[in-house]
């Protein structure tokens, strides 16, 4: 019977078996979007549907951060008027969404991925290049999946 791991337990005790990288998908242009294709190395560990859903939500969040619309123009114009000094006081829209993404990744890890022995790294820590998924050794797998 597979033990469920908590996030802290994983980070402190489990050994890293491998790391899977999900690269950026540039087909939609320069916006930040990650490939939603399910990596084969994770087939035994996590449900495909679940994973794709996580990636899609992540992509949607990044799209929201980079959206060019009325609000971002307003922010840009205001910043220009104040010679961009407003960035010293105010948090930009992008930064706000990044915080949201960090919370989302943490929540996904705690609820879904840590119990399966996986850990998603927030892409911002890898320069928005990849989503790094650390696969921990699951020593307690009995029957296995």
């Amino acid at each position, binding site marked *: 019977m597979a033990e469920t791991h908590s996030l802290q337990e994983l980070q402190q005790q489990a050994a890293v078996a491998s790391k899977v990288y999900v690269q950026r998908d540039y087909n939609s242009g320069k916006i930040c979007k990650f490939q939603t294709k399910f990596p084969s190395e994770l087939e035994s560990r996590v449900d495909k549907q679940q994973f794709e859903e996580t990636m899609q939500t992540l992509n949607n969040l990044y799209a929201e951060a980079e959206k060019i619309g009325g609000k971002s123009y307003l922010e840009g114009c205001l910043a220009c008027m104040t010679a961009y000094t407003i960035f010293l006081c105010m948090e*930009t829209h992008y930064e706000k969404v990044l915080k949201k993404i960090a919370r989302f990744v943490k929540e996904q890890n705690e609820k879904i991925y840590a119990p399966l022995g996986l850990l998603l790294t927030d892409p911002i820590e890898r320069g928005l290049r990849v989503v790094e998924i650390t696969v921990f050794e699951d020593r307690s797998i009995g029957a296995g999946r």
Partner: protein
Amino acid sequence: MKHCEYQQIDPQALSTPTPTLPPQHAVVEEEKGETARRKWEVFPGKNRFYCDGRIIVAQQSGVLPLTLGLILVTTVLFFVFDCPFLLKHLTVFIPAIGGVLFVFVVISLLQTSFTDPGILPRATPDEAADIEKQIDNSGSSTYRPPPRTKEVMINQQVVKLKYCFTCKMFRPPRTSHCSLCDNCVERFDHHCPWVGNCVGKRNYRFFYTFIVSLSFLTVFIFGCVATHLALRAQGGRGLMFALQESPASAVELVICFFSVWSILGLSGFHTYLVASNLTTNEDIKGSWSGKSGAEDTGNPYSYNNIITNCCSVLCGPMPPSLIDRRGFMPVEESSQTVATEIELAAKNEINVCTQGTKDLLESASRSPCPQTGKPQTVSTSCPDSIDPADPAVTFNPAVTPDPVAVPSLKCGGRHHSHTTSPPDEPRQQHHHHNRHHKTRSTQSSSKRAALHISNPAYNVSLSPPTSPGLGPSHATGAEDHRRDSFAALH
């Protein structure tokens, strides 16, 4: 821990032999121990950091002090010598407008210089290994090694993504590696010595504000000084009399006269770039200007609407800095990754050496390339003209003898004397040579007027080759590096 830290930096030292720590923090490496280090302290690129990582500049400040100095001197002279007269005879708005413009200019200049232009952090060793594995897998059955490019479709157009050997990743679209700063920069425009930093995605709007407000300021001061002199010379007293009364005005006139053409030209050029959503880099290389005559070779990033283009470039959301300068180094990771890094370091050194040598030989055989009018100081470089599918150029992990037998030592010097920066691969080995680019840019400050007419990036290409004074330091540095590289092969 000190040992671990040194090891951690070591694989990256393939490309950057000495980490650029600011002098006052050099001792941190000694004490190490319990105090966690901030990420900027182990940053592999050639940047300098101040205020505990809050301020980032390129390794050489270029002519930033000169730029600041000229602006300050001209404006102060204006306020001291011309404003009182104009205030009395004309209106109070003149010093007010001058003041506002001056503030705008200085703030945007400082922001351009001190902001992270959009540096992409280098790939972690695990990532790099993963990418290498993917590349090897895709072409391992063929005799020819796989080319290090990836093609993507953006807006129904094929765009080639190149692999950056220094940063060990496939560069996102519009990203280029700056050899002066030794970083991949997103939406790389150019490296501006006047500002002492690269101009990229994050600071392009500051740069644009700077040149536009500087144009206004220059024109404004020029106009005001001319009015001042004209008013003084009224009543038949003549210009000479006016100049004698206010000699500072003559200085301002001269400075403004010579700068206004170049700065106005530059503003105009960048306004065109903003309106068509192009970067200086792409414009120079002619990436989208239908090189093959194909009709669908347009700019895939343009919205085909001037207003939308301007808004997205200047008023778009401000992306965050990806290098997280002030974050703390994760202590556990450093020890874990040491082992993998040492392995990778050995493998990479072999790859780097052979690829570097190979490319040097290639570029040596293609001597006309660097001497063309194209100022490729921004290191997307000679190999650009080579089709990556060309067998002679593709990366070969094994050591392959190349027909042209020019040793890497000589090539470094050769690249050095040419105006373009070396291509990606050899850059790692000839990292030290880049120091010379900076001396050249300072030397070129004497040609200010001429330089401004064209893009500031051209500065480096116009200046004379290596200064002998830096020879010794450069040689020892390069030697050490080569010694390390060759040692790994044995």
